[in-house]
């Protein structure tokens, strides 16, 4: 019951966040200089043609009416036509979002599976060589631009060693329709086509690794700091005084209370990952939404921009809702305080 109340409050907040986001992106998209109709038609189009398109798109209407149309569309789940692809934005997003989603989720899993243990090891052997190694890695991972890592991996694994594919989500000519969730691994599993699952994983590995390194370093650093913080608590000393073994102390007594900061940061990382994914998508010819969004921005494809932003925003809000629930589960203090509030 309390949990449902908590969820309802969080959901209400999420809706508010999305409304705010819709206003902000609407205003920004229209304040940025450049006429979408002119850009879509090219420099040789006549003034009449441009005016005609402006009227068709409703760009001649007052701003509040334009916003009304936009929100009305959103409420019906209609994102309008893309000027760039000349298809509905819904369709464009439906085909590109799963690719980005699969990439980002894999990235986060990799970052988490390696980042957290690295942080734990660094904290466990603080100021010794494992710690120094992890800290050096975290700094290198943070300062190396994603595009550089992506190219490096592509050259190394793709061309020099030739062990992994470097473009696309599946080998060209693969006959497979990902029409259930759009996620190749999930759909492959659901349809029992395990060669597709295997190939999809092979294709995912390099782009996801390239995208994950910075987040992985971040996870490691935060886990390390949080673990060290907790290790100074009296209850860790108490566990030691009662002869609780090192291993149990480290994972049960120390890691769980230390787990909230990395978890929270991971939720926030999703936003920057979706944004950052475009570099990786371009380099690995990944047919994803991030690359689509960037193209839309450079072409001032208003409907596409707003569609991409709203979908990313919705996804971000949902992920963080999930993270909030997880955080409450990991740390009962947060759950119990929320109940009292």
């Amino acid at each position, binding site marked *: 019951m309390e949990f449902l109340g908590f969820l309802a409050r969080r959901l209400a907040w999420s809706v508010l966040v999305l409304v705010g986001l819709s206003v902000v992106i609407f205003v920004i998209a229209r304040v940025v200089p450049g006429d979408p109709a002119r850009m879509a038609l090219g420099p040789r189009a006549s003034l009449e043609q441009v005016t005609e398109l402006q009227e068709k798109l409703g760009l001649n209407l007052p701003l509040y009416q334009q916003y009304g149309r936009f929100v009305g569309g959103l409420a019906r789940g209609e994102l309008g036509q893309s000027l760039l692809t000349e298809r509905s934005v819904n369709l464009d997003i439906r085909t590109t979002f799963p690719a980005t989603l699969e990439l980002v989720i894999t990235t986060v899993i990799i970052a988490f599976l390696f980042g957290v243990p690295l942080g734990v090891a660094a904290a466990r052997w603080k100021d010794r060589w494992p710690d120094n190694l992890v800290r050096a890695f975290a700094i290198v991972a943070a300062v190396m631009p994603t595009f550089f890592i992506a190219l490096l991996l592509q050259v190394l694994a793709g061309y020099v060693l030739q062990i992994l594919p470097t473009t696309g989500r599946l080998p060209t000519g693969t006959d497979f329709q990902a029409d259930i969730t759009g996620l190749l691994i999930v759909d492959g599993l659901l349809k029992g086509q395990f060669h597709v699952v295997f190939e999809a994983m092979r294709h995912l590995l390099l782009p996801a690794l390239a995208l994950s390194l910075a987040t992985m370093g971040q996870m490691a650093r935060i886990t390390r700091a949080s673990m060290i913080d907790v290790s100074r608590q*009296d209850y860790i000393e*108490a566990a*030691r*005084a*009662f*002869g609780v073994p090192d291993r149990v102390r480290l994972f049960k007594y120390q890691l769980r209370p230390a787990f909230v900061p990395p978890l929270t940061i991971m939720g926030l990382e999703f936003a920057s990952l979706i944004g950052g994914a475009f570099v990786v998508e371009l380099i690995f010819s990944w047919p994803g939404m991030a690359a689509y969004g960037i193209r839309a921005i450079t072409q001032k494809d208003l409907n596409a921009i707003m569609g991409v932003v709203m979908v990313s925003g919705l996804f971000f809000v949902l992920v963080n809702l999930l993270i909030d629930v997880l955080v409450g589960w990991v*740390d009962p*203090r947060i759950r119990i305080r929320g109940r009292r509030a």
Partner: protein
Amino acid sequence: MSALLSVQGLSVSFTTYGRTAEVLKGVSLEVPQGAQVALVGESGSGKSVTMKAIMGLLQQPPARIHGGKIMFDGRDLLTLPERERVALRGTAMSMVFQDPMSSLNPVWTIEDQLTTILKYADRRLGRDRDRRGRRARVIEVLAQVRMRDPERVAGSYPIMLSGGMRQRVLIAMALLSEPRLLIADEPGTALDVTTQAQILKLLRDLVEAQGLALLMITHNLGVVRETSNYVYVMNKGEIVEEGPTAGLFEAPRQQYTRDLIAAVPRLTGRVAP
């Protein structure tokens, strides 16, 4: 009769940032079987370091033990292999921690924390007890520390309990594996005076009922009078005075002891307006 715990000429120094400080200068004290002994001194006098050295909790470095013996039950703890040393923790000697707010893990229930400690203590002692047996023992000990509803307390997270209840959980934690020596580090100082008095009474009753030896570490001579028969007074890393509690209060020999006695707040005498 030889003492259960006997610290002989213990010297400890700390080295930080290249400077070395002598923290304990040949400390000697004895806790006979079933006796209630207090170690009293102001902050920084070295009583916590003495306690940590006995429990084997000193971080080395920065600490270094460069002299003395800590005999427990006829064995020198300082020369004991680490494994056997750990085996004694919580089972032969255990500690009542000072701060009830920070000494319990916030993300696990009381039952979970107590059964975990019990599980590994059992394992070290080669005792065979299953999950239900451990739970039963936890409930039993929580009842011993006079929890009104031990089942409910066991299922609670520390944040759901009052300070006094948490302090009692810490005492229960120390009693879980039937130790012979209890080292209490100023239990209750973080609580209000009434609750502290209850905690001290509970501790004394338990120690007497179970025939445990108690080493009470405190800065408060009021606590000493409540809980011990014999006192060691510590100052600047040395034992400056020792004797039976009653005699020490009547005729302190050292100026330092007299100062400590003078510092005990009294309920008698003139009340400030």
